């Protein structure tokens, strides 16, 4: 992966995979309420994908300079399994961790390439993922850590 | 000595009537004879101190009979109060005597406090005392003008009525209103003194003192005023108690009676003043006594300013006035207003409304019984000056 387009294609594919993953878990989820949440997550990933497609088409710009708040909630949580009777809390943990991993991947890649447009794109992608992570971490803060 | 208008100083009452206090009906007069004239003075007449009227029967210029008629100002305050809450009433009572609303505010509040066992803070007693003395000053200034005017000295009337407005300015500053101050409220007063009030009050007191000196020269050391007021409407000592005569009207007769000294209330026991008395008991003596009492007011206001605590609470802890039930009880409270003893009799039944309030104003006796008696035998031209010299306010007759 050396060109900007290649990177973006990869990122778009990753978002699609995430969307597929949630849909798959949703299929197996035991309760209707849980299914709905997971499908919502899947929709959220598809929204991310759409943003990246727009970026590739030049209709949207990534903004590598923007500051994104890192709540660091997911950093210290245990890994959980996407089982059939997954709970709301665990679904959110999976989502946070996925976004966190993606963020880390793009930041690490950006660190390795020299100053270039490519580096900027990678940094922009990292910021984008950080935003997604913040979204899920905020949800977790509101819905799970109610009394904390 | 022979005085103008056929009066002498020898007899306390200048007519053929004896000084005894028999209430024998006068001989009915035969109006058809054409010898007598029936004349109504008031209710619209500048010589009447408010809306009331005198039904005079004249034999020539001489009054041979006087009947008083009241009712033109009847607004039923005592009854109104029975339908208003204890806090609302304090906005009503000030209207009972327009030139002296504060005494009503104080006595109403005091009666409520007495029955409910509320003790007002010290600062409130001082603020009330000063407020009452300011009221006395304003009322006397208006009276001096009235007395001067009744004898044709409108210059003095203009001076004092205008200066009274400076005192009203002080009220406006201290209470938020010029006439219906609504300052003394059950539980204390509504506010402390505004910033800079003391200085302005002292300035106005100095001016008032100067004015009174001028008035003494122009009105009291005046041949015309002396001629018309000396020997006029003398109240003999034996009338004082049977007629319930109080205040300056009694003191001018040598009766040393003043509630501020006799039964001190508020901060009066901490103020230096003496009861002013006179001897002649005529219109001039009463006027001169009131002039001295006006000076005394200025001194008392200054003393209040010197001695009152300038900070601290000015209101006692109050219950919620929106549903204030005063315990059942009754009381009579009184205070010395410009015209003597002013009293409030209050009965409560433990509900949110007062059961009965009776207001005793000195005008009731002074303007009716005393007036009817003193008028007889006098000249029609003196009737206005005579009435003013009794210092009466008809609205408090009719409550």
């Amino acid at each position: 992966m050396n060109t900007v387009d290649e990177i973006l294609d990869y990122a778009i594919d990753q978002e699609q995979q995430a969307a597929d993953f949630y849909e798959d878990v949703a299929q197996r989820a035991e309760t209707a309420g849980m299914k709905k949440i997971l499908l919502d997550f899947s929709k959220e990933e598809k929204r991310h994908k759409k943003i990246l497609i727009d970026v590739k088409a030049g209709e949207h710009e990534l903004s590598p300079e923007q500051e994104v708040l890192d709540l660091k909630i997911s950093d210290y949580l245990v890994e959980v399994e996407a089982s059939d009777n997954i709970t709301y809390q665990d679904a959110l943990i999976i989502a946070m961790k996925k976004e966190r991993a993606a963020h880390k991947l793009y930041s690490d890649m950006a660190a390795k390439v020299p100053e270039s447009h490519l580096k900027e794109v990678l940094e922009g992608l990292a910021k984008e993922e950080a935003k997604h992570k913040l979204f899920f971490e905020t949800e977790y803060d509101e819905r799970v850590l109610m009394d904390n | 000595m022979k005085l103008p208008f056929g009066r002498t100083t020898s007899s306390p009452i200048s007519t053929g009537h004896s000084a005894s206090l028999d209430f024998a009906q006068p001989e009915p007069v035969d109006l058809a004879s054409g010898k007598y004239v029936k004349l109504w003075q008031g209710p619209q007449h500048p010589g009447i101190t408010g809306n009331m009227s005198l039904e005079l029967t004249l034999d020539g210029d001489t009054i041979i009979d006087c009947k008083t008629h009241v009712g033109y100002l009847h607004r039923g305050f005592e009854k109104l109060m029975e339908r208003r809450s204890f806090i609302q009433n304090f906005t009503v009572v000030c209207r009972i005597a327009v030139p002296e609303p504060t005494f009503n505010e104080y006595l109403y509040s005091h009666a409520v406090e007495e029955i409910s066992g509320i003790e007002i803070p010290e600062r409130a007693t001082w603020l009330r005392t000063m407020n009452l003395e300011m009221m006395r000053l304003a009322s006397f200034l208006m009276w001096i003008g009235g007395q001067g005017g009744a004898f044709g000295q409108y210059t003095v009337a203009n001076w004092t009525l205008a200066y009274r407005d400076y005192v009203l300015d002080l009220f406006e500053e201290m209470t938020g209103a010029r006439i219906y101050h609504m300052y003394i409220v059950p539980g204390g007063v509504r506010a402390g003194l505004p910033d800079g009030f003391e200085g302005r009050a002292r300035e106005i007191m100095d001016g008032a003192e100067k004015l009174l000196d001028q008035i003494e020269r122009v009105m009291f050391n005046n041949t015309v005023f002396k001629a018309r007021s000396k020997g006029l409407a003398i109240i003999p000592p034996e009338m004082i108690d049977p007629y319930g005569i109080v205040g300056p009207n009694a003191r001018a007769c040598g009766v040393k009676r003043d509630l501020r000294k006799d039964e001190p209330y508020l901060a009066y026991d901490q103020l230096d003043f003496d009861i002013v008395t006179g001897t002649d008991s005529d219109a001039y003596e009463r006027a001169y006594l009131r002039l001295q009492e006006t000076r005394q007011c200025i001194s008392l206001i200054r003393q209040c300013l010197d001695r009152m605590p300038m900070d601290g609470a000015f209101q006692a802890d109050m219950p919620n006035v929106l549903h204030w039930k005063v315990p059942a009880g009754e009381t009579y409270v009184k205070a010395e207003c410009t015209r003597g003893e002013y009293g409030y009799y209050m009965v409560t039944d433990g509900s949110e409304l007062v059961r009965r309030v009776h207001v005793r104003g000195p005008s009731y006796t002074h303007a009716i019984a005393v007036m009817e008696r003193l008028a007889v035998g006098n000249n029609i031209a003196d009737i206005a000056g005579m009435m003013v010299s009794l210092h009466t306010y008809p609205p408090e007759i009719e409550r």
Partner: protein
Amino acid sequence: MNLKDLLSPFFVWQRAFEKPYTSIRPTIDRPGAPAYRGFHINIADTCVGCGSCHEICQNHAIDMVAVEEYLGREGDSGLRPRFDYGRCCWCGLCVDICTAASLRMSNEYAWISEDPTVFHFTAGVDDKPWQDNENGYRRAEGYHLYPPKRIEMEMLPANESVSSFEEVVKGYSEEQAKKEADRCVECGICVATCPAHMDVPDYIHSIRDGNYEKGLQLMYRTNPFPATCGRICTRRCESVCPVGILGEPVAIRWLKRLIVDQVDASDYQRILADTITENGKKIAVIGAGPGGMSAAYYLRKKGYAVTVFEAQESAGGMLRYGVPSYRLPDNDLDKDIDYIVSLGVEIKYNTAIGKDIKFEQLLENYDAVFMSTGLSVPSSMRIHGEDHPRVLSGLQVLADVANGRDPGIGKKVAVIGGGNVAMDAARVSRRFDAEVTILYRRRISEMPADEEEIHESQEEGCRIVQQAIPVEIVSADSEQQVAIRWGEAEMVDDPKGGRPRPVLQEDRMHTDTYDSIISAIGQGSNLDYISKEMHEEFAIEWGKFTPGEYQHTTLEKVFVGGDFANSTADAISAIEDGHHAARGIDRYLNPAAYEEK
């Protein structure tokens, strides 16, 4: 006649050279004194429309009128005073009584108009030139027409309260309650704010009259848990009480408690006189908490045969197992529950739906079902090492204590969380002689727990460490102990709104050792008793129901209420949900009675 008296009056000429009193030109404006009682000013944004001005006006010169802009504001009647200057006597009592200090007067006193209708205006809403006047009469500092401070409540001193489960709040005496009840201005804003819309001003009035029987009747119209709510209600009424704007709000909760305390349980039947005419229909209620029991009470009153299914051995739900007895003694909770039971409500204890009886069976056998099973599952922290045996859940500790079991917490305890469960767990631990540290991710001011509980827990010696984020549980040297690694947090404003978010500072980490760690970070619902197939029928999101107008669900004849069906998750909301569901069920089963006539 002497010469002096003849000459002296000529002194008047001297005055001819003095400055006249009057203005040379009569058109010069003379402003009123700075504290003059002139035209009214109302700061409409500050005003809450309590109507005390209207109440005190002896001239009926003030009407409270609805102002669109303020309708629906929390703690606001939406009304504003309209003045009729044909009646006003400028006494200013309206200003004196104003609970929000929004009403005052300007020092302007001249207003001329050809149109007589303009003298009837809503101050602060209708534009008037004096609205921004800085001068004029206002209530003086230190002058009150109602007592601004509440009657102090006697409490067990902290050194005594930590050594027993005796009730901490002692309750008012009759005399104290009368005084406190006197402070109410009877505006009714509390009624609108109370989730159950309890008739607060009227039952407070009954205290002033000493008529506790009437007070009890009034309370039972909207709330069959007055003894409970008189102790532990979240009392949103007090947070909107206008008396609290300038002083302290009326102690509505303690007054409610007094009424119940004054009436003996044996008199309830006679006083409340609930007569029941059976209507032959059967209702099943799942969960005997405040929501379920409230529904049971109001349904029973309408003549339904009500059966309550309760998994525990006693009724009360979180009130019994989640609220320690020093806040709500068992016999007071029983006073409420026993009366409901006495009307013929049947409770099947130790009966868990889904295990002992299937949910579908209830649907089949009853005319309607009301579910109110609350939030009973403690959220897990999901941090490493959480499965350590010395990590306990707050709810479990409270349930153990309620059941008379030793929670086995040791002598040095850390409580994680800042809600009421965390505070209760901490204070219970103090009563077991433990040294307690509360770790909370945010600041004390942001704790969701009741302010009083936070205060009392501190009084009782609980140490609160704020902005502390637990990161990991690690084993300690001894098996009887456990260590927690936590980091300090910085608070960061959420750019999207919402409460400030704590951000872990990884360079400021600490590790402390405790005998046990009690986790109380939140709770979720347990809906396992509904089969997978049935789940499809309901719209459940994030473990919660979003009920319809009458607490109905997407499934016909099933109604829900309580913590898992509202956003506030407190007893009073559950009680109202139950009451409202009872109306909903009655509408559903007896529609003829509700048809428009």
